[in-house]
């Protein structure tokens, strides 16, 4: 059975094609001004790479902040539900999933079946999400992907107001004027985010094993800071940014089976 999961995030759309319980194709695109069209493109691209057609798909499930704009009359699942499902699929012992995206961060607790039992969300504040790293990279005048490697070179972190992007930007500018080193500023940015994520997790209670997903999980600077802060090594899947879409595709398969009965 073929199912498709589409994760319509604030910045990017991710699509996963699932065949008999295994992910066989992926594609992503910028959400842009027309998330529906961008989602269609990712689905077409992923299906084509797997030599499949739209008519082969048994079910579509969408997730993500723009899930209601999904094409193909896709059903929906909450982002927390999708994270929990995929987290336990990828790491069967995992009971806590942290998802750090461009504009939102979530910590999800789940049971052994991958059913979400509790969650905490950081929303409507850019300081706890990928947007913070982007803003600080702009202020530091380095590329986003340079931030992680820079931070790893630092022994310590510079003092910055890390609880607000707006104040953080001003602080970074004055630190640059004082000729503080860029690696130390970059590390401060990741340490600050790790602080926020870890306080979210403490509200939820940390149950090892902890899985880190979402686009920001690809940033080694953030991962190092988070591991240091939590005092453990978070598990990161091969395609952390596709986890929401994978969860949606897995749930699509479950629902299609139930529907067939």
């Amino acid at each position, binding site marked *: 059975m073929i199912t498709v999961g589409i994760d319509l995030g604030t910045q990017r759309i991710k699509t996963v094609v699932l065949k008999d319980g295994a992910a066989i194709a992926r594609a992503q695109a910028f959400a842009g001004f027309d998330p529906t069209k961008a989602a269609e493109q990712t689905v077409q691209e992923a299906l084509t790479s797997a030599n499949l057609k739209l008519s082969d798909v048994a079910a579509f499930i969408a997730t993500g902040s723009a899930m209601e704009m999904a094409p193909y009359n896709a059903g929906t699942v909450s982002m927390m539900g999708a994270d929990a499902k995929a987290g336990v699929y990828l790491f069967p012992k995992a009971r806590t999933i942290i998802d750090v995206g461009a504009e939102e961060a979530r910590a999800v607790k789940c049971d052994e079946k991958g059913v979400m039992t509790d969650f905490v969300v950081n929303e409507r504040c850019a300081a706890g999400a990928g*947007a913070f790293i982007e*803003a600080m990279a702009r202020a530091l005048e380095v590329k986003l992907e340079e931030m992680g490697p820079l931070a790893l070179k630092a022994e310590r972190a510079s003092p910055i107001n890390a609880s*607000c992007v*707006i*104040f953080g930007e001003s602080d970074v500018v004055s630190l640059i004027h004082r000729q503080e080193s860029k690696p130390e500023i970059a590390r401060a940015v990741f340490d600050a985010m790790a602080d926020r994520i870890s306080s979210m997790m403490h509200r939820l209670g940390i149950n090892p094993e902890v899985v880190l997903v979402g686009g920001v999980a690809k940033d080694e600077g953030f991962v190092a800071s988070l591991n240091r802060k939590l005092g453990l090594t978070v598990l990161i899947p091969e395609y952390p940014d596709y986890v929401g879409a994978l969860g949606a595709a897995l749930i699509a398969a479950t629902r299609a089976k139930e529907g067939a009965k």
Partner: protein
Amino acid sequence: MKKPSTVKGLEYWRWQEYQRIMPNMKWSSKDIITAGVDVGSVGSKAAIMINGQAYSWGITRTGSNSPESASKALNFALQGTGLKASDLKYIVGTGYGRVNVPMANKAITEIACHAKGANYIWGPSVRTVLDVGGQDIKAIRIDETGKVVSFLMNDKCAAGTGRGMEVFADLLQIPIEDIGDISLKVEKEPEPVSCTCVAFAKTEAMGLLRKGWSKEKVLAAYTRAMAVRMANLINRVGLERELVITGGQSKNIGVVSRIEIILGVKTLPMPRWRDDSGLDPMVAGAYGAALFAKALYEKAQKA
């Protein structure tokens, strides 16, 4: 002087620094001359008082160095008064940079100073003070003597603060001193922007501009969202009349009038009972600090 066009866009946030000396006030060496220096994150304010009455004050922009900003503000307040720093019997420092006011005899929190200053400006009927500063918002309940009863604070977030307003002034290319009036130039109040986070609100505002919204309408939607946030803080601390607003945003008519509508109460206008006062609510913390300075000086003399 005409500024080169390349930097023009960076200057919309810049508000006027100014100094004022009250007319018809005399001083002699027998008077208790005190000063309050309020080093805020955005503005540094200093007030000179003679026997507990405001004589002069100055407002300057805070630089990256707190001690320098404190001296700059104090010297600005002293300018043209004939007073020297050595004539000051006691100085109290307050504000976010209060531990870095080198000339101060003592530091007192800005919450206590704003409470005292609001009581001084408006009199004993004030019970709730909303202080909107450069980087935080405080709702303070006070008694008839200006003493703090309780307070709530929103810090570490730019939403609703003066800094957040500066970001919007820059984004919309409207001088900061005009944004209040301009935000009221809408026929119908639009829905507030949905994001309170300034970083996200910026993105949302750019989207609205692209959709063809006027600057006035975008500013109204943002100001509304910020006013809702401030009104919520006041409600959480418990609104008791009379209500006054201090700090830089007390000058933003767009914010003040919306808070009044949301809460259904009028804020106190500038008082008439103190003739020719012209006291500035942005200087409330410095007035309060100068009053504490007088009380502390008198206490030290008795001891």
